[in-house]
């Protein structure tokens, strides 16, 4: 009996030994690599598809937590149309503005023939002022600031080794609200873009499309152009989704990047300040800022990156619109609908810092 158990044990051990008796060294032996040149897919129906990356793109961010500070600036308020009381044009001086920026983008489907990513973003801007202006918008900005909370999704659909489509959509809740007194979801503003493009090679992808956007403050439909390009030297490149943002990229190393360019940021903010003047008037602030900036992105530890941005913020739009009922309307660049209040947001310098967990 004991002999039988012993034989069984030896038999099992020997089979393990022979199964493991493969090349057992980690040393790199000389190998003829030419035998790997002429290979085919084992699955004859398999196709190659292009990926959304080109060489040396700045890293995409899974999670980003940041802070922005803007220097002193003026806002010139126009006449408060049809309001009782304070209607005079006046300039308000702000000592600065600041706020938190938080975003997360997680790929939920990552296959060769489709990549789907969903994200969340939060941005708060607090306005700091020397004095109280009697304009209701001024009071709303100073007491509540502006908040954006949104969800977004990006779909990358390759059709072949060089042709692809990108679809982006986001829903943002913008206004002078707080989480203790939130805005009704019916005020969600939807932005979308669709782009058809070609990946010319591993250093260049280009595409054209159309967007429904609030980046100019109010609803607009704008053609868009995508260009991600890296020079053969791998030192310089372009990352562009015009007109929203354009960046020239200088790559010092894959972990140390400098970007020069601009971004157009904007949205339509529901002003529901509880002072009884704005709340009853269906008013939205058409805010749009053009930021010319230099951004330094560097890896602190493998997947943890820091981004430091410095630039000049130009106020492109800060007008108020009044809605009939709650329905959005389209003015575009050529519409003649008048604004409820025309304001001018003065320019200033700004600084933004963020810590990021970047995608593999």
């Amino acid at each position, binding site marked *: *009996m004991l002999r*039988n*158990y012993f*034989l*069984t044990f030896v*038999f*099992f051990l020997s*089979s*393990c030994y022979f*199964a*493991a008796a*493969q*090349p*057992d*060294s*980690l040393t*790199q032996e000389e*190998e003829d*690599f030419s035998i*790997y*040149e*002429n*290979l*085919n*897919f*084992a*699955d004859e129906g*398999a196709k*190659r*598809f292009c*990926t959304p*990356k080109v*060489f040396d793109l700045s*890293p995409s961010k*899974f*999670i980003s937590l940041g802070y922005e500070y803007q220097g002193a600036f003026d806002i010139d308020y126009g006449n408060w149309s049809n309001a009782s009381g304070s209607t005079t044009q006046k300039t308000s001086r702000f000592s600065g503005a600041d706020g938190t920026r938080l975003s997360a983008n*997680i*790929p939920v489907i*990552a*296959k*060769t023939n489709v990549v789907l990513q969903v994200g969340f973003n939060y941005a708060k801007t607090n306005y700091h002022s020397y004095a109280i202006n009697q304009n209701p918008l001024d009071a709303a900005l100073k007491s509540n600031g502006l908040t954006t909370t949104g969800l977004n999704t990006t779909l990358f659909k390759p059709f072949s*080794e060089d042709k692809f489509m990108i679809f982006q959509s986001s829903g943002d809740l913008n206004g002078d609200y707080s989480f203790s007194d939130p805005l009704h979801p019916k005020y969600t503003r939807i932005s979308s873009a669709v782009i058809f493009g070609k990946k010319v090679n*591993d250093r260049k992808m280009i595409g054209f499309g159309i967007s429904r956007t609030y980046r100019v403050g109010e609803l607009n439909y704008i053609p868009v152009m995508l260009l991600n390009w890296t020079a*053969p*030297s*791998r030192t310089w490149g372009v990352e562009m989704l015009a007109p929203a943002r354009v960046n020239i990229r200088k790559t010092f*190393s*894959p*972990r140390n990047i400098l970007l020069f360019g601009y971004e157009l940021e904007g949205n339509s903010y529901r002003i529901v300040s509880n002072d009884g003047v704005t709340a009853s008037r269906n008013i939205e602030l058409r805010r749009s800022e053009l930021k010319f900036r230099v951004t330094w992105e560097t890896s602190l530890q*493998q*997947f943890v990156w820091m981004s430091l941005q410095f630039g000049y913020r130009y106020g492109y739009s800060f007008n108020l619109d009044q809605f009939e009922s709650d329905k959005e309307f389209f003015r575009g660049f050529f519409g003649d609908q008048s604004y409820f209040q025309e304001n001018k947001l003065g320019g200033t310098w700004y600084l933004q810092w963020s810590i990021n*967990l970047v*995608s*593999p």
Partner: protein
Amino acid sequence: MKTIIISCALWLAHLVGSAQADQLLGVWEPSNGKARVKIEKIGEKYYGKIVWLKEPNDPKTGQPKVDKNNPDVSLRSVPLKGYRMLKDFKFLGNNQWDNGTIYDPENGSTYKCIIKMTDSNTLDIRGYIGVEALGRTDVWKRLNTKK
């Protein structure tokens, strides 16, 4: 007699497990088509080395590409061809190999990695940071010699 049956069953189970685990062996192509990776078995673990590059030479130097982005300066002159970018995978069963790492020569980063075989010619390779949810999956296809 009973002992012999048990020993045969054990042996067969081991062989079947081993055969399942070894389905991973072979030459595979990542979705970007820029490289080919040969997966080998060393001891009980699986390793993948780069055996082909679409662009084998560095356009700047005209020389074969080396691992120039490796955070370890002493490894920056190691040729990319032959470089083991997949390391230390163990077969978990259920067509999955885990406990390994994947190295991205484009940025010199090493990620935790899990491999799932979705069919005999397709691998889902998921590199991730800390938890699987914070990762990206790439689909690799098996290659065969041209007939």
